[in-house]
């Protein structure tokens, strides 16, 4: 959707939101890429929901691919959102990742909550970030603030 009709404050707000989420994804991806011992195995094996699926992803044959795919996807989302280029794609990839993270450890009553810095019931930060990405996927600001501006004529 075109964001030209929004007030400057609203449009700038969307840009800030896009940059913050992109920042978060990119930093997570970079840290994981440079940490040789990082693996998603523990997170997947401790899944409190859909264990067969996450257990399968954590299996020896798949975990290497899953770890690499996770890092690449995190960094891709981060780069697209921070640079403002095809950020709509980045939003949908990001939503996919966050939904997987959420489903492995959903904040459903009765399920173990694991380590966390807050208290949650149904809603947690993964879900909120996914919802924010959904908004950003509808209201793209790449041609207003981002590399896409260089190739666009509309500057919306």
């Amino acid at each position, binding site marked *: 959707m075109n964001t030209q009709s929004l007030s400057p404050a609203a449009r700038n707000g969307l840009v800030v939101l896009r*940059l913050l989420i992109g920042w978060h994804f990119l930093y997570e991806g970079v840290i994981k890429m440079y940490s040789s011992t990082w693996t998603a195995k523990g997170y997947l*094996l401790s899944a409190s929901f859909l264990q067969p699926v996450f*257990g399968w992803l954590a299996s020896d044959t798949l975990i290497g691919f899953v770890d690499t795919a996770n890092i690449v996807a995190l960094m891709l989302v981060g780069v697209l959102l921070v640079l403002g280029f095809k950020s709509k794609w980045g939003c949908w990839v990001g939503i996919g990742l966050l939904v997987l993270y959420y489903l492995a450890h959903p904040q459903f009553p009765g399920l173990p909550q694991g380590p966390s810095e807050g208290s949650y019931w149904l809603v947690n930060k993964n879900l909120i970030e996914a919802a924010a990405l959904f908004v950003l996927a509808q209201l793209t600001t790449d041609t207003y603030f981002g590399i896409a501006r260089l190739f666009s004529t509309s500057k919306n």
Partner: protein
Amino acid sequence: MADDSIFSRLSRRDWLKGLAGVPILGSIWFAGASFAGKAKRERKALLETLNIKASPPPPTGPMSGDPIRVGIVGFGGRGEDLVRALGFPTQEWLEARKKDAAENPSDTRLKEYLQQENLNVKLTAVCDVFDVRADRALRSFNSNGNVCKRYRTHEELIASGEVDAIIIATPDHWHAPISIDAIKAGIHVYVEKPMTHNIAETYALRDAVRANPKAVLAVGHQHRQTQSFLTAQDAIAKNILGHVSLVVTATNRNDDNGAWQYDIHPEASPQTIDWERFLGSAPKAEFNKEHFFRWRKWWAYGSGLSGDLMTHDYDRINCILKMGIPKFITASGGIYTHRDGRNVPDVMQINMEFPDFTTGSSQEAGKEKGMTFVYSATLGNTFDRGTVLMGHDASMELGNAVTIYADWGSTRFKKMIDEGRVDPTVPVYQYDPSTNGTDAVTSATAKYFANKGLLWTYRDGKRVDSTFLHLREWLSCIRNGGKPSCGIDEGFEEAITAHMGGLSYKLGRRVEWDPVAEKIIALPGEDLDAILLANEEFVTSPAMKRS
């Protein structure tokens, strides 16, 4: 040019807003790379400083050659486990696992079992005094080219000429008599723990083994095969922990099975059980089903917590520290959780003193020496207290993984703690045998996962049966030579320590070992074996006496 036509229309504002993300991206990348790089360098430096060699036990030799003919004496619960690990599951077990796998596809126990290496043995003989158990063995093990015969007594089994080796999984009071007869006949022996039931036969069995060096005796402490123990040994050898002054181990159980309250078979009767044979050296008694199936509850046949379960923990620590028999033992306890007529305690604390032992020191010479090893057990609570070796510089948590925490008061790590490079609340070192991974300074989250045992799960086909490995080691010593990791000397130390624990509990005083004379010190007129095996009902309090 086309490019010119696209970019020439761009204003300075367009360029700024178009490329503003690039420096942000660069900053984030730089920050992440330098932070992770610093953490990696610090971890590498710490691992190099610690220099712990993480390695699993060396593989045992080949299983080639003629099949070894094995007999099983005592085909109860543990006997079934042992021959199954040897490659001989009962039909009932196979059916049950097939059913489990059909109901739950993620139950891979059967699949893993069927993938187990063939140990190239024949199970040729079974000896059990209960017809039902012997028949079950004969039903299951006379197939696939294996011929298994029943013998009424272990003497007949040993004399049959049909066995090269035997596995003994009888009640404790039969361990030594059968082992001694077999060893004297040149038959190899794998005997369950505790190696013996009393003090005198501990010496007699050692004499028999020394006189017959060709027969290989292994004691069934399968924990010796724990993947992490060499790593733990190396950490001790490199004095990472500093002077270890206290070792704590524990047993925590809270169910009938854990308290030896086993099922009584409906077909048990004087007609199906050779009761006199079961009694053996035990005091004469009328036929009693409960005594037969729940023999661990009485000193007449079993050894209580000190012989049955403390021996596991003692041997695990002895395999790492090699501290030998304690100089003093003080034990206490009582029957506090299962007042069902048993006479062995179900809550027991055993304090073992090693006043001359040291693992090394990081402080001035002579300041530190001596260690206490506490074994603490209850059959009325399951809170997991773990196994911890506590040194001046660090503590080592010992399980399938080895986890080391620096100590706040450490001399060795003082500088690193002061500089914030080591945090005593998170592990300074972790060895996870399931991934062959080592790590230092793990995160709180990793610690949480590790504590839950998730980082070394064996779900993905890596689960290894330590009993299988222990049997394989014994068979390899028989075939290829070598010494079992838990042989007669280790078994002697285990058995004497267990008996000192039982004695201290019964005497209500400190029991002392004379390492020169190799004797437990008795007061004038004391018959220690008579005291250890005494079977009077143990009454713990006036209240109980009234009840």
